[in-house]
């Protein structure tokens, strides 16, 4: 009981730190807006000074069109170097770094809270709604941080951390239940595997979702630029990768998520065969897991279908993740079925 109280304390601390990280990331977006307009200004001045005008004027537009992990940062530097403007310091998104540091700190508390909950319950900490939310969001943060080691996705911070604060805070407020022993059907090795992999898949879908949302916003901006419009939407978008790059990233995350989801379906079927006497029975939760699988299968095919790349496939990714959230919340709480492990009455 003591351990569980400590776990709750750690979780709330993590929520507070995540909220701070969210604020830092939000400031980062604001700062990016500032940078983008500064650069526009600098470029305009350069043109006036008839320095290598063509190269730099292009850079303010082409910034967003350059690929590469930290393409925006690099291009900003390149622009500065090529333009010969020594006063333009190298770009560092300080607030984004603060946000990420806070996220790491929050993650440590979050992990501690989750592990303590597991120790308190003497089992894996994912067997009711509260614990699913706790572990699921932990995995989203873990995947987000791990991916950032590989490619700079800090611009997703606001979206991811906002999602985490809402989900984890909501769970801590609305789903909290005391530690109780497992019901018999949950006493299985598949609880460890099936639920964990499902949460991991969800984490990847969440990243793909955030990228798809940004992709749509970026696409709108790009088409406005191409149309020569005066206003092209929020300026921070100029420091973000191109819509095409974000679509590619979203696709990669979604495919990883899809693999995990496929495995979840199979592992769930094996478990159902042992626990309920059939591997598939269109239980409500099974049905929704299937629907999500089909939606993401559609998403993957959309990438290979003319006319479905771009906006439409982004919408499919968004619809898919909405279905994941629906499956987790509404289906768990309000739909009648065999997956009655929410722990809520």
């Amino acid at each position: 009981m003591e351990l569980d109280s400590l776990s709750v304390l750690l979780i709330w601390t993590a929520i507070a730190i995540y909220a701070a990280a969210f604020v830092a990331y939000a400031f980062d977006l604001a700062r990016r807006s500032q940078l983008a307009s500064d650069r526009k200004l600098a470029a305009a001045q350069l043109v006036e000074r008839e320095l290598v005008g063509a190269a730099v004027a292009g850079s303010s537009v082409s910034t967003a069109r350059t690929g590469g992990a930290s393409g925006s940062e690099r291009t900003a530097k390149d622009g500065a170097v090529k333009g010969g403007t020594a006063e333009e310091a190298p770009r560092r998104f300080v607030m984004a770094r603060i946000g990420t540091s806070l996220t790491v700190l929050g993650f440590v508390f979050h992990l501690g809270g989750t592990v303590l909950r597991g120790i308190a319950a003497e089992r894996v900490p994912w067997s009711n709604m509260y614990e699913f939310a706790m572990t699921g969001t932990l995995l989203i943060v873990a995947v987000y941080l791990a991916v950032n080691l590989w490619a700079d996705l800090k611009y997703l911070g606001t979206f991811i951390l906002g999602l985490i604060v809402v989900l984890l805070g909501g769970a801590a407020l609305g789903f909290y239940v005391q530690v109780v022993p497992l019901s018999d059907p949950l006493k299985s090795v598949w609880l460890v595997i099936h639920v964990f992999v499902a949460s991991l898949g969800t984490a990847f879908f969440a990243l793909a979702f955030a990228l798809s949302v940004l992709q749509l916003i970026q696409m709108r901006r790009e088409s406005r630029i191409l149309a020569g419009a005066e206003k092209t939407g929020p300026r921070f978008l100029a420091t973000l990768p191109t819509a095409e790059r974000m679509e590619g990233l979203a696709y990669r995350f979604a495919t990883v998520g899809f693999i995990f989801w496929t495995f979840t379906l199979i592992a769930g079927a094996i478990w159902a065969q042992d626990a309920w006497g059939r591997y598939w029975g269109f239980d409500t939760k099974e049905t929704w897991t299937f629907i999500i699988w089909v939606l993401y299968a559609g998403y993957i095919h959309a990438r290979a279908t003319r006319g479905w790349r771009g906006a439409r496939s982004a919408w499919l990714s968004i619809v898919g993740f909405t279905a994941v959230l629906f499956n987790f919340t509404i289906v768990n709480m309000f739909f009648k079925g065999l997956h009655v492990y929410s722990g809520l009455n």
Partner: protein
Amino acid sequence: MSSSPSDTRPRGGKGPKRDGTDSAADPLRPSDHVDGQEGVASPSLGVVGWLRWGWRQLTSMRTALVLLLILAIAAIPGSIFPQRMADPNGVTQWKTDNPDLFPILDAMQLFDVYLSAWFSAIYLLLFLSLIGCVIPRIRHHVKALRTRPPRTPIRLQRLDDHREAVREVPGGDAEAAAKSAIDIAEKQLRALRYRVERYDDKRGFSVSAERGYARETGNLVFHLAILGVLVAVGVGGGFSHTGQRVMVEGTSFVNTLLDYSSMNRGRFVSDGDLTPYRMTLDSFDVTYQPFGSAASGQAGDFSANVTVATPEGEPRKESVRVNHPLDVAGDKIYLLGNGYAPTITVRDAQGKVVFTDPVPFLPQNNNTMTSLGVVKIPDGLPQQLGMVGFFYPTAAPLETGALTSVYPALINPTLTLNVYAGDLGIDDGTPRSVYVLDPTDMTQLTGGDTGVDSIELTPGQTAQLPNGMGSVTFENEAPAGAKDYSESVKRYVSLQVHHDGSAVWVLVFALLALGGLLLALFVPRRRMWVKAVADGGTVRLEYAGLARGEDPTLAAAVDDLAASHARLLDADGGTSAPATPDDTPNPRK
């Protein structure tokens, strides 16, 4: 559904991009991009032509995608409305709650969504589309597997991922140095598991390489395995059977059709297909969380301890537990439910026993095990007698004076009975549930509004039936000398016996699909070329890569290839890097 999930080529993979409708408005295409052929007069089609056109449409990627999305939407109603296959009681309840709407929705098969004509139509069309796409792709892939990598393009610099390098030849024979550079590149690519082909001609030396054939193989395996899952489920359903059986402690059951409470069997299952083993329920174990703890009364550690005797083998002791079904002669036996079966004896006015049996009571609340049961006595008494009983394992009075159970274990077991006399409604052969009493043609004699108190018994007690009809006894099943009530009432279990030989095949195909998916999504398919041209005292090297399908790491792969080739050339010593590093601009950076 049937194209490579990440392949930008049209289905059939017959070449560069074609078709497409709305790319004219696509800002990412040049303005002179001609796509689609609006305004072109289509040739008139005969019957065969139209069939061919229809088939093309059906097997097109776009149709497959739309069918997938429709399938996702069509599956939703099955989670909103109760389904007969998953929740038959829910359907009955829904019918009672919405008597007017029910026939309409039922006619739309909304209570059998996954067996409905419209749902079946969608997935059958989808699978037809899949077959129509996979077959030509298999042919195409088999051909591709036998084909050597294609001739090196003349202008490699036209490819997006292109690198150049110049190396000096100290010895002087640039021609020989170029040849040996390509020899090294060939070995290097071969070690990277590329399939390679040399194309040396008077323009220069080059090696063409291709890898990632497993991507398409995996893609085809995935789609065929999905078909396999469907076929295994469909065929397996015909050979499977599922039966339910309620067993009270101490009783036996023989695995024959007659001995089941209910049975569903596939169309190919004949009467003799069941192995006639005998199973006896020796005891049933369960533990309850202690009273007052966080999960007070939560049950767990269920174990139905049985003795199984197969026709050939010795009887053996086994247990059926949740998550641990028992295997007997290819059948799997599952523990679905449990409850109390109070033993009730009814005697007539002369004291002659007219009924004595443990009666399974259905739990109404799993945390307290308040249970409801029905006793029907058609013969032996002046009138047919029905009794509706509540069983409380740990009875305690509510403020109203009515009883309730506060804990699921047998601490203060109490049975209350409301007695009905009249016509049970079973003489005309109408099938009636043993768990429900139809009071239409009966008169209530105790409880409710009769003014006579319900009969209330604890184990071992006997009460007189109204109107001097006889007596009813709640038998105490505890062994002589027992100190408490913990063994006073027998328990029963509800078992499911399931036979489905196809499950393992479904699993095999599902795992194949997963394996295929991994290959199809993560193996990059790409072509690489290395070309060397002797140019005076130097060798000009070109590297280029072409993605075939989704390949986010191609640029890095070309970089790696060029870099490690340079290292190998340095080691070889035939050529050397220019003194000042060649500042060939990389188009990607």
